[in-house]
């Protein structure tokens, strides 16, 4: 207390006071305490105010506090932090050391002139020289610099450590270059769904060409290919096609066009495939046979092949849908075909012949013809009106300026939904099989939709149904029919179903 009272009374800058006095931080609380005890806050503040040292200290403290709380401000004011970053420190150090270390760069660039580096590289054969050199001059700097700047010399010599580092660098770059390649591979795999599933039905994702030929019956197509005399050729051709597709951007176009071509063709074609394997479909077998013979006949005349194919292209537009697309695709195909005629010859006419024969009939035939699933069960075509309705409701929400659905668009949509239902049935059947059931239950569909990421933490089946289904269906989904009647109905339905199945198979 003795010390504090004099300072309070006489705020002076005497050195004694500073020496005696501990920093002001301490004094301030003490005074505060005093003021509290005495009950005179005013006096304390008065005492505090005049001392300039305290003011300065407070200002410093405030500054420090503001600096702590607003680091950006401080940084902006002075480039302290920028200067203090490790890189900045290194830079300043470099500035200081620059004159001294300057020879390194020159030595690496010109190894032949100075004994400095050259001996290390070339005199590996006799180590004596190397040792002598190392004695004379410090080896370390050249070793470090060497691999980066002079790759050619390294390739000649056996100096391992430097070259290793260089090679690693190269590998890095190579890997980075390769990444995109892998990525494309992954994409194809992704489209397939999963690695393990080598199901034949997945194949159409890999080779879009196949989409054209095989629609509903993938296994059938494969078998058909095997039946063909030159099965090796066919596979080869397929791979070639794939490669060219990957290499050239232009072909990408045509392959898109080819899908449409396939869409029309496949209806006729596909059905033919299973026909060979399963005795059920009678009319189609004949067709396939005629196709095969036609193909063989055309094989004999190699020159005609190109023409035959072009014919098919011409047939395309008359066919029905996008005439322009067809022609463009056809032209592109031509070029590719001409390039590797020997391999391509067989499949092309194979596809072309039937088209020219019954190009226009195909659309109607599609309606009429019987569809048979891979299990050998006949099933009806999807009514286009239904597809159209669903598509139009979907289109309304998509916000396209023209919500009309044209005929060929509808065709494509129908095809897509046919594929979808095939895939769906496949998956659901697999789920039910897995659960060792003979019937597909709602839980299977739920599982499927979970796998599709349709149902998740964000949405439930009911929320989706609320959004997308009409009310009567929603009600059906929400409140199942009263138990007894439902059971009866279900039982009856099941019996009917089983009867049908037995009939068909």
């Amino acid at each position, binding site marked *: 207390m003795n010390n504090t009272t004099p300072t309070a009374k006489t705020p002076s800058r005497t050195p004694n006071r500073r020496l005696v006095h501990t920093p002001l931080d301490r004094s301030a609380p003490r005074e505060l305490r005093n003021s509290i005890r005495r009950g005179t806050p005013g006096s304390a503040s008065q005492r505090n105010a005049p001392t300039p040292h305290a003011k300065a200290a407070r200002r410093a403290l405030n500054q420090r506090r503001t600096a702590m709380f607003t680091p950006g401000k401080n940084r902006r004011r002075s480039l302290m932090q920028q200067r203090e970053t490790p890189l900045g420190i290194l830079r300043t150090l470099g500035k200081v050391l620059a004159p001294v270390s300057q020879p390194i760069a020159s030595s690496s660039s010109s190894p032949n002139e100075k004994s400095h580096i050259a001996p290390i590289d070339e005199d590996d054969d006799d180590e004596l020289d190397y040792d002598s050199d190392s004695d004379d001059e410090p080896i370390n700097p050249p070793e470090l610099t060497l691999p980066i700047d002079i790759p050619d010399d390294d390739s000649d010599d056996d100096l391992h450590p430097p070259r290793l580092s260089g090679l690693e660098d190269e590998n890095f770059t190579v890997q980075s270059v390769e990444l995109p390649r892998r990525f494309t591979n992954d994409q194809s795999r992704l489209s397939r769904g999963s690695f393990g599933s080598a199901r034949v039905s997945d194949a159409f994702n890999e080779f879009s060409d196949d989409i054209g030929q095989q629609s509903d019956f993938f296994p059938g197509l494969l078998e058909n290919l095997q039946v063909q005399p030159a099965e090796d050729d066919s596979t080869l051709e397929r791979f070639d096609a794939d490669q060219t597709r990957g290499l050239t951007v232009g072909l990408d176009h045509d392959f898109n066009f080819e899908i449409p071509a396939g869409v029309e063709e496949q209806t006729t074609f596909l059905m033919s495939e299973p026909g060979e394997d399963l005795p059920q479909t009678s009319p189609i077998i004949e067709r396939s046979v005629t196709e095969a013979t036609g193909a063989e006949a055309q094989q004999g005349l190699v020159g005609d092949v190109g023409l035959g194919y072009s014919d098919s292209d011409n047939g395309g537009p008359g066919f029905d849908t996008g005439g322009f697309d067809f022609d463009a695709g056809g032209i592109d195909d031509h070029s590719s075909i001409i390039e590797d005629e020997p391999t391509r010859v067989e499949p092309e006419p194979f596809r072309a012949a039937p088209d020219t024969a019954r190009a226009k009939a195909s659309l109607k035939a599609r309606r009429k013809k019987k569809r048979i699933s891979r299990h050998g069960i006949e099933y009806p075509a999807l009514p286009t009106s239904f597809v159209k309705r669903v598509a139009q409701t979907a289109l309304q929400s998509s916000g396209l300026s023209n919500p009309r659905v044209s005929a060929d*668009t509808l065709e494509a949509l129908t095809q897509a939904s046919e594929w979808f239902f095939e895939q769906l049935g496949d998956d659901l059947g697999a789920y039910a099989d897995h659960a060792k059931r003979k019937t597909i239950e709602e839980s299977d569909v739920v599982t499927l939709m979970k796998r599709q990421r349709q149902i998740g933490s964000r949405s439930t089946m009911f929320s989706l149904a609320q959004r997308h289904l009409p009310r009567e269906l929603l009600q059906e989904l929400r409140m199942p029919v009263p138990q007894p009647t439902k059971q009866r109905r279900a039982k009856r339905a099941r019996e009917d179903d089983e009867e049908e199945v037995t009939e068909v198979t």
Partner: protein
Amino acid sequence: MALGKKAYPKATVKKIIKAHSNHNLKKNADVTIFLNYVLFMESLVKEAAIQSKKSGERGLSARSVKKATRDALAKFKG
């Protein structure tokens, strides 16, 4: 979402699924299947609309639908 008097051809869809899966369908499964189909159609049309917008068409074109089909199918693979 006003579909016509008939919500959807239930029997047809049921038959198609049954043919492809070689299994029977339980009562409410077909409604959920239809729901799934609607979702599929929605995503397909959405993608196709984006495609055709990109290529500057005004309506939905068959080409864009065909382009989008692959991705949509892959997306709805179980």
